[in-house]
C-alpha cells in the first residue's frame, strides 16, 4: 500500500504528471505515491518522468481500464 494515493482519473495531460510531481514533493524520501490515471498518455509519461527525476517506479499495472503507478521518492 502506497503512503499517498493521487486520484487523477478523468484528468488529461498534463494534469496526472503535475499532480504526481506535487505529491512526490510532499512525501519523505523512501515513501511511495500511487497515481491512478485514465489518461493513456500516462503509460509513457509517468515512466519517462520517474526515470528522469530518479524516482524508482516500483509498480505499473492496469486494472478495470485504469492505470496504476507506484513511485518511490528518491
Amino acid at each position, binding site marked *: 500500500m502506497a503512503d499517498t494515493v493521487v486520484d487523477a482519473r*478523468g*484528468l*488529461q*495531460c*498534463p*494534469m496526472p*504528471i*503535475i499532480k*504526481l*510531481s*506535487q505529491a*512526490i*514533493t510532499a512525501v519523505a524520501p523512501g515513501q511511495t505515491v500511487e497515481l491512478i490515471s485514465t489518461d493513456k498518455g500516462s503509460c509513457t509519461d509517468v515512466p519517462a*518522468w520517474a526515470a*528522469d*527525476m*530518479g*524516482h524508482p517506479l516500483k509498480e505499473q499495472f492496469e486494472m478495470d481500464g485504469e492505470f496504476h503507478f507506484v513511485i518511490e521518492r*528518491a
Partner: protein
Amino acid sequence: MTTPNLAPVEESTTPDARPQKEKMVLIAASGDLDKAWPVLILATTGAAYGMDVTVFFTFWGLAILKRPDAGISGDDWRQKLLSVFNRGAPTNLGLSKLNFAGLGPKMMRDLADKHRVASVQELLELAQQMGVKLWPCQMTMDLMGLSREDLIDGLADPAGAGAAIAEMKQASISLFV
C-alpha cells in the same frame, strides 16, 4: 508571550534529487488558443520535471497575459483600436484556423471541458503556483500601448530580447511557439 526561536531555520529540502536545476525557456509569440495551450502545458510539465521555467510573452502572445477587464489601452488611436480588436485574456483567445468568428474556440473550450482538459486560465494560474516565470516583452508592450496595469498580477518585470537570449544560452530546452 514570545517563543524563543533559538533553533536555526531549517533549509527547505529541494523538491528533486538534482543538485542544479535545468532551465527551460519558451517564447510565446502567438495569441492563438491552440498555441497558448501547448505553451502552458509544456511550461507546467517542465516545472513538474523540477526545471526552472521561463515563458517570454511577445507580440500577440501578450494577449494571454491581458486582464479580462483591461479595456481600451494606449495613447495612439491605432493602439486603442488594436486593444478593441485584440481584447486578449485567456477567455477571449481565438483559434488559428476554423475560428468562425469565435464559434470555433467556443466549441473547442466546450470539448476541453467535456474531456476535462485544463483550461488556459487554469494552466496559467497553475504555472504561477509552480514558480514558472512569466515575462512580458517590454518592446511589444510599448508598441501596443499596454501598461503593466493591463496585464495580470504576479508577472516578472518586463524584459527584452537581451534578457531572453541570456536565459536561452543557459537553457537545455528553448522553444519558440
